[in-house]
């Protein structure tokens, strides 16, 4: 009897231990998930305000953008088409890659709206440039890569883009006044085939293996420089050819008060290949 009492007490004590392992039912077990990447998305995002970002050159001249506004509509099926962040193996012999994939956004539900004002101040003359307004900006797939360069130090990155812009307008009288503007309507950027037709895929502008872009600091014959480079396409890690993209603008129109609009029609660049790009910043 006493031994039974002891057993009961010990059982009570053991039962009170919070760390004790518990069996899981099938339902509970089915809720266990293993993941090796991160998904993220925005919901109900908007930005407004009067903040001004100013760049001032060593000469004292300055350029500013201010009153930046942005918003994005959401997918009707939350969590179904997010941004994806993964670390994936690099090409053989190359480092791993941080990969950010944009939403597929096939139904174009995720639309961005942007607007900002800008101006310059130089040689004692301050000039407001008006507003830049971008309506219905849709990113469809594409993404970013970040890794270490194949040679030298720095940050290697890749970028792929398919973008459609409903309208890009430069409005000197402000973002709420479209009576005077230069409007580029229906801008489309994406990958194209050999005939210059859009394939529907993102245009791979840079790839960490096949044609890497790099940002670093280097020394040339005139000193140290901040350096951005898009390397020659690699035949080892790619086809040896840069990918092909295109830009189409459906319509370009200038509008002024009491004037008939000047319709310049459309513009198309069917095939663009960036073979090599080298930018050095210097004074």
């Amino acid at each position: 009897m006493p031994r039974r009492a002891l057993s009961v007490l010990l059982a009570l004590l053991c039962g009170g231990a919070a760390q004790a392992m518990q069996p899981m039912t099938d339902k509970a077990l089915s809720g266990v998930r293993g993941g090796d990447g991160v998904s993220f998305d925005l919901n109900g995002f908007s930005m407004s305000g009067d903040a001004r970002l100013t760049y001032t050159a060593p000469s004292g001249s300055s350029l500013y953008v201010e009153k930046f506004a942005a918003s994005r509509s959401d997918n009707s099926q939350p969590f179904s088409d997010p941004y994806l962040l993964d670390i994936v193996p690099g090409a053989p012999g190359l480092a791993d890659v941080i990969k950010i994939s944009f939403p597929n956004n096939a139904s174009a539900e995720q639309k961005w709206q942007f607007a900002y004002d800008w101006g310059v101040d130089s040689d004692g003359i301050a000039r407001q440039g008006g507003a830049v307004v971008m309506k219905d900006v849709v990113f469809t797939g594409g993404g970013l890569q970040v890794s270490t360069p194949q040679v030298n130090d720095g940050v290697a990155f890749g970028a792929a883009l398919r973008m459609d812009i409903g309208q890009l307008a430069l409005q000197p009288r402000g973002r709420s006044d479209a009576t005077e503007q230069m409007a580029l309507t229906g801008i489309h950027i994406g990958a194209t085939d050999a005939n210059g037709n859009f394939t529907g895929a993102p245009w791979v502008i840079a790839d960490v293996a096949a044609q890497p872009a790099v940002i670093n600091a280097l020394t040339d014959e005139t000193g140290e420089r901040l350096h951005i480079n898009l390397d020659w396409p690699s035949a080892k890690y790619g086809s040896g050819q840069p990918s092909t993209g295109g830009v189409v603008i459906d319509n370009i129109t200038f509008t002024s008060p009491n004037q008939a609009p000047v319709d310049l029609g459309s513009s198309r660049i069917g095939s663009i290949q960036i073979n090599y790009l080298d930018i050095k910043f210097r004074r």
Partner: protein
Amino acid sequence: MSLRIRQAVLAILSACSCAVAGAAPQPLDDAELGQVTGRDGISFAAHISINDPSLVGAVADSRLSLGFNGDGTNRYIVLKNLRGTVDMFAVSLSVQNRSDGNGDYIAIGLPGYVRYTNFGFESLSVQTDPSAPVTGSLGSMNLNGVVNLTGEVRIWTH
């Protein structure tokens, strides 16, 4: 019951009573109960001041450097006097159930009010000695004013 077993039982009961006494539930009257609120996340606001030159003992020349070494020569991207003030109200953080039933997500509520005051850096340069005087500045950046945000960032695993 033998003496040894009695002593063991008393010791165990004593341990139990001590453990239970600290967690014993207490009755609450209506007034106390009315003060109880339930929360499932946190919110925080912030006032951040970096390298404020107006403070006594302020550092007059601070550097943030990124180093590169490509051909045996060290080079640095140098930001001089990264400074400014940020007032932010408020970021929320919580864990929510996904509406599609596939687990939970971290919800980061974006701040409705962020004020930047003289936030930026005084010069950007590239040089071989990160502590040497800046002679090749590419210019400065500065951010002033208010940014209002709405919505949230949602994070989950895949």
